[in-house]
């Protein structure tokens, strides 16, 4: 096999305003090789993909395809030069059939050719058959399930006969069987001698497929090697998982006797046909601290958005005995179920104080002043930065502001979605201390969603593990450390014929 790399990236850098999304990334992919590019949200992996495809222009660096420098070219030129991409989501043309979509991909970029060449039709059929769409070739995209739509994207990429194939989150929204079929197609690319770049959140899903893996965090290179090597790499573990687990002693046994304040049963969520949550159930008792642990992309945010009434779902969610179905997102928040989302959703051009005041809008005046004083004690840095606009705060300060603002509403149940994302370890310590103080001084109930296990465990009474849209494990924090701890980042627990996890990994779904 030819040893010269088909795709060669060096020193790739991209800035968006003041934010460096990608810093000095470089790698090679040889023909017939599959490289997995992994990283959590905000790591820059999607930006790298866009830079290679030309959708974004790099500030610096080189992208060579088969020796030809393409950095800064227009996307359609890059596409014509042999780079293909399989999008995770695309907007298909509703009045065209699947076959016509594939034919489109086969068309030359000409202004005068009114009709497609005769062989195009034949070739399109062949491709449809190859990806398994022969039966639905003549149907319209609106009538097809998500997996078939992804196959169609695959088919369009194949039609371009690319030298380099970029695949965005190959298995997101697919069932286990569909993922297996998709893997086969990707292996087909490898067999044909193409260079394949898979971009995804975590190593687990790519481990079976990728020859090598490159891990990114906050735009920078973290580690490279085989899947196993990367999963065992200390830096990777520290950055993704928070490193070695340490357990604090928790003496909140009394919480176990209380009634469940939040009951989630058999919840399913579809994003445009992609299955984001597949029959998820959990419970949170009054005063408890429950951590939902799962790698990026597992479905934690979707779960929290369903609970907060921000996305449609099937199933039942009850808060304080009341069924939340039909309530608006704002009504749910007013009833005491408040979420501090991953994206924080701060009012960027308003000051810290104004953000906090808006949080306390619906609370009585006297209580508000008290609440504010208490929060300033909990997060002293916010008091000193009261008059600064939120946009100018550091990442950690913004996160604290977001949590404090949510706490201003005096919630009965606080949902925290990945508060540690993108924060330095020293900030995590401060956050951890604040959460500790919160737990000790108030009867608040907390539902935390985190990838960083080290952060999620010390405060938790109970832990759920969410993986690929399902709850795969449930238990106490000490048991998690025993049973799941090391295996968390490694290969998925063995599954039975129904795709359900079995073995010592313990408790099953629901």
């Amino acid at each position, binding site marked *: 096999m030819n040893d010269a790399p088909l795709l060669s990236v060096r020193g790739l850098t991209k800035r968006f305003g003041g934010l460096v999304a990608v810093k000095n990334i470089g790698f090679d992919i040889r023909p017939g090789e599959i490289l997995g590019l992994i990283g959590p949200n905000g790591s820059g992996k999607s930006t790298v993909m866009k830079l290679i495809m030309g959708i974004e222009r790099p500030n610096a660096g080189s992208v060579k395809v088969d020796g030809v420098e393409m950095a800064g070219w227009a996307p359609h030129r890059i596409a014509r030069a042999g780079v293909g991409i399989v999008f995770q989501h695309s907007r298909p043309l509703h009045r065209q059939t699947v076959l016509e979509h594939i034919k489109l991909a086969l068309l030359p970029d000409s202004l005068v050719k009114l009709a497609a060449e005769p062989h195009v039709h034949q070739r399109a059929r062949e491709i449809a058959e190859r990806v398994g769409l022969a039966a639905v070739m003549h149907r319209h995209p609106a009538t097809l399930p998500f997996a078939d739509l992804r196959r169609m994207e695959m088919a369009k990429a194949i039609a371009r006969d690319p030298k380099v194939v970029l695949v965005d989150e190959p298995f997101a929204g697919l069932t286990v069987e569909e993922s297996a079929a998709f893997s086969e197609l990707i292996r087909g690319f490898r067999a044909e001698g193409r260079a394949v770049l898979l971009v995804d959140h975590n190593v687990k899903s790519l481990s079976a497929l990728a020859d090598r893996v490159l891990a990114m965090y906050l735009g920078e290179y973290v580690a490279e090697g085989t899947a196993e090597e990367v999963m065992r790499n200390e830096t990777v573990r520290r950055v993704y998982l928070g490193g070695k687990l340490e357990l604090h002693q928790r003496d909140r046994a009394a919480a176990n006797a209380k009634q469940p304040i939040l009951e989630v049963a058999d919840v399913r969520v579809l994003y445009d046909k992609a299955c984001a949550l597949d029959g998820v159930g959990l419970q949170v008792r009054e005063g408890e601290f429950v951590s939902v642990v799962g790698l990026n992309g597992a479905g934690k945010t979707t779960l929290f958005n369903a609970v907060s009434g921000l996305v449609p779902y099937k199933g039942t969610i009850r808060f304080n005995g009341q069924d939340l179905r039909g309530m608006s997102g704002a009504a749910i928040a007013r009833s005491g179920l408040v979420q501090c989302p991953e994206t924080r959703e701060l009012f960027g051009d*308003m000051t810290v104080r104004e953000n906090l005041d808006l949080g306390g809008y619906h609370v009585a005046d006297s209580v508000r002043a008290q609440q504010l004083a208490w929060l300033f004690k909990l997060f002293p840095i916010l008091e000193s930065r009261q008059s600064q606009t939120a946009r100018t705060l550091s990442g950690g300060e913004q996160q604290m502001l977001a949590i404090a603002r949510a706490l201003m509403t005096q919630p009965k149940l606080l949902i925290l979605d990945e508060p540690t994302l993108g924060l330095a370890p020293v900030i995590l310590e401060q956050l951890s201390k604040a959460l500790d103080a919160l737990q000790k001084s108030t009867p608040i109930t907390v539902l935390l969603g985190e990838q960083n296990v080290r952060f999620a465990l010390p405060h938790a009474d109970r832990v759920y593990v969410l993986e690929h849209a399902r709850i795969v494990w449930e238990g106490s924090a000490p048991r998690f450390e025993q049973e799941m701890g090391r295996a968390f980042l490694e290969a998925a627990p063995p599954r039975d014929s129904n795709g359900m996890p079995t073995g010592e990994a313990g408790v099953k779904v629901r």
Partner: protein
Amino acid sequence: MLLLQILVDGFAISSLYALGAIGFTLIFGVSGILNLAHGGVMLVAALMGWMLAGEAGLGTYFGTLLGVLAGLVTAYITYLMVVRPIQRSAAIPGEEKEIFVLTGTLLWGIMIQQGMAWLFTDNPVTMRPLIRGVANLGGVRVPYNEIMIAVVCWAVIGLLWLFVNRTRAGKALTAASMNPRGLTLLGFELSRIYLLAWSIYGVLAGMAGVLLASFLGVSTNNAGQLTASAFSIVVLGGLGSVSGSLMAAYVVGYLETITAYLVAPTLRPLPALLLLVLVVYIRPQGFLGRR
């Protein structure tokens, strides 16, 4: 002499433009809508005010008040029966909603214009000024009405500023223009905030309409031009920026006044349009825009 006249007249008309434009930009900032029925709202306020004051004999004060009320009602109808149903329609794909809302408000504006023309004919009408008499400012004759209009406009703008920056409801409104999802997460019903925004808009546009009627007069033929002026100003100042609209209103107001006095009254709307074209080609986000 002429210079002073231009300065004074320009100031008054700019203040009036500012009032309407601020309302227009407020709606865009908070709910992302470009209300192409803006001229229609002002028209209804002006004509109803004129009719109730004069024909119905209710007197100038009541007529003015009711005119503003009519503007408010028209604004509500625009939101509740045109904009909101389109936004909530499941039959329209998300990417096209903006276009449909634009077309919808355009159609609604035409309906208002034609309906009003049928009721009142397209003859220009002028409302009797609230204050009669003419002052003498440094040798220039300025109707008291004109001075009053400038004062009222600035008073309202001042009140609005106070509301937005000093009251909690006002801050919620500002927050809605920054991050509606953030507000929902804190328990604010966005639908109520939008209603508040449209209420403020209705009052602003209504006042602008009624005052315009007593200053320059209105006719149903003006409706399109009024909308065009408003969005010219708003685009020049930067969509969503209230201070930008304020600045741009004065630029446009003075340009128009200068053209009317020094070139020809019929060419009045031209400089603003040309400026708009320039801005759109060179700096689409306007002077101070952030979207």
